[in-house]
Each structure stands twice: as structure tokens, then as C-alpha cells.
């Protein structure tokens, strides 16, 4: 008898709900849902890297930000009025001409490639430097956290190039279509759902390959794997790079939904929040990560509306509950209920 695993069941429910949502939700609510689904891409990347690979990154905000800023740079350039040569904040900060590396993203196609390629190259380079030197565990987590802090600080300090503390906002058009138009919003939602489905099934496939097995093997016994003749570094570098790319795409989509990207969205606190979504959803389950992201962000939205200052306490409380009561998150609870051992 073939049994449907709880993961597959939940995945089917989530996707069904996502498919029905445009017919049922008001535009603002649909925007929120799309935004949360975009964030779930970052969470799925963390499942791969942290849940399966055992590498905790507290710096996913960096790659989220790289994707977000790349698409935002394009949007700023696409929104220039005739006669303007550079975005208004550059004029205010006294810049004489548009920097060359900004100009590259004037083309939407280059920007879309950049959303994938910039996080991939930086993520792979960083991971290679770290894992080649066998830096992992707590040390790796702390270095990624420092990276997140440095990235946010850099963005704030380089106001002429990055828009500083306010980030980049006030977007007009993408591919000639107004970003705020219903058609664009709806298209964006379906694009997000499509990418989520692709990553969900792609991720499941990847984890079932020998690569996936070796990733778990490296998590459980890096030394055993090494002394069986495998070099663990390439597996970790690939997992880190994939997670970075997913964060980049996630950040680009989020930027389109939210209409803004700023240092406050990419620094230390957002990076930790990303880990919390996954911890609550279940760090070894791709579907669990989606559910965790949706629930935590919905709760954040609701709680912040009523009691803006209370959210961080609620988040901390949720994290403590997840770690003590359900170390494998919601997915772990469901799997355990289904298979009482």
C-alpha cells in the first residue's frame, strides 16, 4: 500500500490554498500572501543548508538584500523621467554621474540575471573560503552574523550609492508595466507561486539524490565522511550557494511586493527572523519551512498592527517554545503524530 507522507499532504493543501487565494482574497491580502510566499524561498534555502546540511547561517539577509537591491537598482533606473540621468537621492548627495556598476542594471534582463548571479557568486566565494578552511558550527554562524551586520552598515554608510538608511523605494515600472497595477501584482503572485512549486519539487528531488544523502552524512559525521574518502567542502559550498540564490530571488520578489528595500530588511535581526521561521516550521522539511514562514509572518503582521512593540517579544517567545517543545518544529510534531514511535 502506498501511503501519502504528511509532508506531501500538507504540500498539496498549501498549494491548493495558494491556487485559490487570488479568487478569494482582497488585493492587499493577496499582496501580503505573495510577499510571505516569496519569503518562504529563503526559508527553503535554510532547510537545505541548515536542516539537511547542518550549517547554520545567520546572514541570509545579506543575500536577500543583494537580490532585493539588484532589482531595486533596475527599478530606480527604469523609473527615471526623461532627461534625468540618475536617481534623485544621488543628485541630493552630490554625485556627478551614475556609477558604472549601477548602469549595468539598466537592462531588465541583466537585472533578472543579476538577482540570481550576484548572490550565487558572492555566496559561493564566501562559502568556499570558509569551508575550505573547515570553519563551521558556531564559528561559522557568528561569522555570517558579522557579515550581515557589515552589509547593513555598508549600505547605510554609502548613501550616495545605496540610498543609505532609507534604502531604495518609489518604484514605477518593470518591463514597461506599472509595478502597482493589478495586472502586475497578479502576475507577480503567480510567478511567486510557480517559483515556490519549482523550488519545492526541485528541492525534494535534490535531497533524494546522492548529493542529498551526502549532505545529511556531512551534517551527522563530517569526519566519518572525510575518512570514507569524501571532501565535505564541495557539498557545503553547493548547499550554501543554493541557499544564497534562493534568498536573492526571495529578496527580489519581496522588493517588488513591498515597493522598498532598505538596510532594516537585510541586517542582523531579519536574518535571525529567517532562521526562526524555519525553526518553527521544521528545519528538515521544505513544506514545514513554507508553513512556518506563512504563520510567523502572518502573526507578525497581526501583532504589529495592534501592538507594534510587542512583536520582538512574541518572536523570542515563539523561538523558545519551538526549541524546547518542538525541536523539529511543526513538521516534527506532525510526523511524530503520524508515526508514533
Amino acid at each position: 500500500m502506498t501511503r501519502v507522507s504528511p509532508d506531501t499532504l500538507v504540500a498539496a493543501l498549501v498549494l491548493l490554498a495558494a491556487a485559490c487565494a487570488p479568487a478569494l482574497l482582497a488585493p492587499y491580502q493577496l499582496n501580503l500572501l505573495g510577499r510571505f510566499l516569496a519569503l518562504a524561498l529563503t526559508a527553503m534555502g535554510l532547510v537545505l543548508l541548515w536542516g539537511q546540511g547542518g550549517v547554520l547561517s545567520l546572514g541570509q539577509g545579506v543575500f536577500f538584500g543583494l537580490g532585493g537591491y539588484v532589482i531595486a537598482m533596475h527599478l530606480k533606473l527604469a523609473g527615471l523621467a526623461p532627461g534625468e540621468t540618475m536617481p534623485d537621492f544621488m543628485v541630493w548627495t552630490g554625485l556627478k554621474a551614475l556609477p558604472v556598476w549601477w548602469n549595468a542594471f539598466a537592462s531588465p534582463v541583466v537585472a533578472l540575471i543579476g538577482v540570481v548571479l550576484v548572490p550565487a557568486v558572492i555566496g559561493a566565494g564566501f562559502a568556499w573560503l570558509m569551508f575550505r578552511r573547515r570553519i563551521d558550527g558556531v564559528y561559522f554562524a557568528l561569522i555570517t552574523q558579522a557579515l550581515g551586520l557589515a552589509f547593513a552598515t555598508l549600505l547605510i554608510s554609502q548613501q550616495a550609492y545605496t540610498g543609505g538608511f532609507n534604502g531604495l523605494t518609489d518604484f514605477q515600472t518593470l518591463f514597461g508595466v506599472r509595478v502597482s497595477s493589478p495586472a502586475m501584482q497578479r502576475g507577480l503572485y503567480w510567478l511567486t507561486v510557480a517559483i515556490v512549486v519549482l523550488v519545492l519539487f526541485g528541492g525534494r528531488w535534490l535531497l533524494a539524490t546522492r548529493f542529498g544523502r551526502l549532505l545529511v552524512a556531512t551534517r551527522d559525521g563530517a569526519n566519518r565522511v572525510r575518512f570514507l574518502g569524501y571532501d565535505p567542502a564541495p557539498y557545503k559550498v553547493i548547499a550554501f550557494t543554493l541557499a544564497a540564490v534562493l534568498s536573492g530571488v526571495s529578496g527580489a520578489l519581496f522588493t517588488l511586493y513591498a515597493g522598498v528595500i532598505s538596510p532594516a530588511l537585510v541586517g542582523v535581526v531579519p536574518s535571525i527572523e529567517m532562521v526562526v521561521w524555519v525553526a518553527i516550521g521544521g528545519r528538515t522539511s521544505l513544506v514545514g519551512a513554507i508553513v512556518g514562514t506563512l504563520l510567523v509572518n502572518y502573526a507578525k503582521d497581526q501583532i504589529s498592527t495592534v501592538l507594534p512593540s510587542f512583536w520582538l517579544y512574541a518572536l523570542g517567545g515563539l523561538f523558545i517554545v519551538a526549541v524546547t517543545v518542538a525541536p523539529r518544529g511543526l513538521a516534527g510534531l506532525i510526523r511524530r503524530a503520524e508515526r508514533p514511535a
Partner: protein
Amino acid sequence: MTAAPLLRIEQVTVDFDGFKALDRLDLALPAGSLTAVIGPNGAGKSTMCDTIIGRVRPTSGRIVFRGEDISRLPEHRIVARGICRKFQTPGVLVGLSVLDNMLIAAGDRRWWHAFGRKVAATTAQQADKMLALVGLDDRRHALAGELSHGEKQWLEIGMVVASGCELLLLDEPTAGMGAAESRRTAELIRALVGSQTVLVIDHDIDFVEQLGGHVVVLHQGTRFTEGSLSEVRDNPDVASIYLGRAQS
């Protein structure tokens, strides 16, 4: 010894901040031989294994495998040259099934070949063969973490053999096993000798007797004496180092 030995440890010293775990150790393993290394606690047995497989680097001296100095190679390259080791505490991959453990041990080491679900036929055969050999055939779908201590030992021995390496280092392969299991382990190891070269570290003299190979006694990081088990056992100096009596 006529042929050049498969592995030669030449004047290897391992210095842990002034404590010499190995002190100018010399040892040669002829191809296809079985060598048992015994010695009191702290004699340097495990450090010797660690040094051969690159977990610990010699402070001085060389380790020569098939004529090549391997003492500075990265660990996975040492395995690629043909040396695999079983650890003292079972080092199975607890999050994977018994079969997956075996497939990884027998499988392709190149990471760029890892993006597929298909397992090479030779790898699958090798894994099946080893599972049958170590008696874990019916446990193949269990998680390795759920095995008993003895079963984990068997699995790891199987994995080390499945690696296809020419030289196998078995660090206390019978720890936690009963007498019957120990005997089966000895039979399994004896069956490997000839096609593979085996170095066994163990405390259990009964087990070493069942193995019946060449015995080397290690003491204070250096080779104390060697010979057949009966020769070693009849040596009064060996008894004195085990009992901790001062050497005269």
C-alpha cells in the same frame, strides 16, 4: 620480508605539547598481512591510526604508502590512495539508512557525480555483498542511528571493507561485542587477509588470538616488541608494562 612493505611508518614522532604520543615509531606492514597492535592504555595505538589517516600530523618522520609519502596529504586523498579506518567509537552516519551508509562507503567520491538518484550497479552489488557479509541484510532500511552498538560496529566494519581500500585500519572492532560476535568478527577479518592488508588494534587478547596474525606491542609511543602472540605473551617484559612495573 622480500617485497617492499605496503605501508611503512618511518621514525614518526607525534608531540602533543611536550607529550610524545608517538616517539620515533617504526613499523612496516607487508601487503596482504594481518597485524595486531596491542599495548597498555596510552601506548599510542589510536594516535598511530590517526597519524596514518591524516587526522593527526607527525611532528617528524614519514609515512610511506606504496612508496609515496602520504603524511601531508588531505584525509580524503589518503583514502583515495587506499587506506580506510574504522574508529574506536562507531562512526556510522546516524541520519541515513543502513543501505545508504553502505552505498556512500562503496560509492563514487566525486561530488560532481552526486546529482542523480541512480546508483552504479557495481556500487549496489558491493553494498549488497557487504550487507550480507556483516549480517545486516534484513536491517538495510533501518536508520543507522537505531542500530544496537554491536550492529553499528558491524556496519562500520562493513563500510570500511566496502570502501575497497587496500589497507584497512580497525580500531577496537569488537568493543561492545559479545564472545560469539567477536568470533564472527575475527572470521570476517581473517577472510579479508590476502586480498587486503589489515591492521587491528585491540585490547582483547582472546580476539587477537583468534585473528592469529603478527603481533606488535606498543609502549610509550614506540615499538616495544613483536612476534607471534605466544612469543609476545611469554615475554616477561610485556607482562611488566601491562602491570605498570618499572622497567629495570
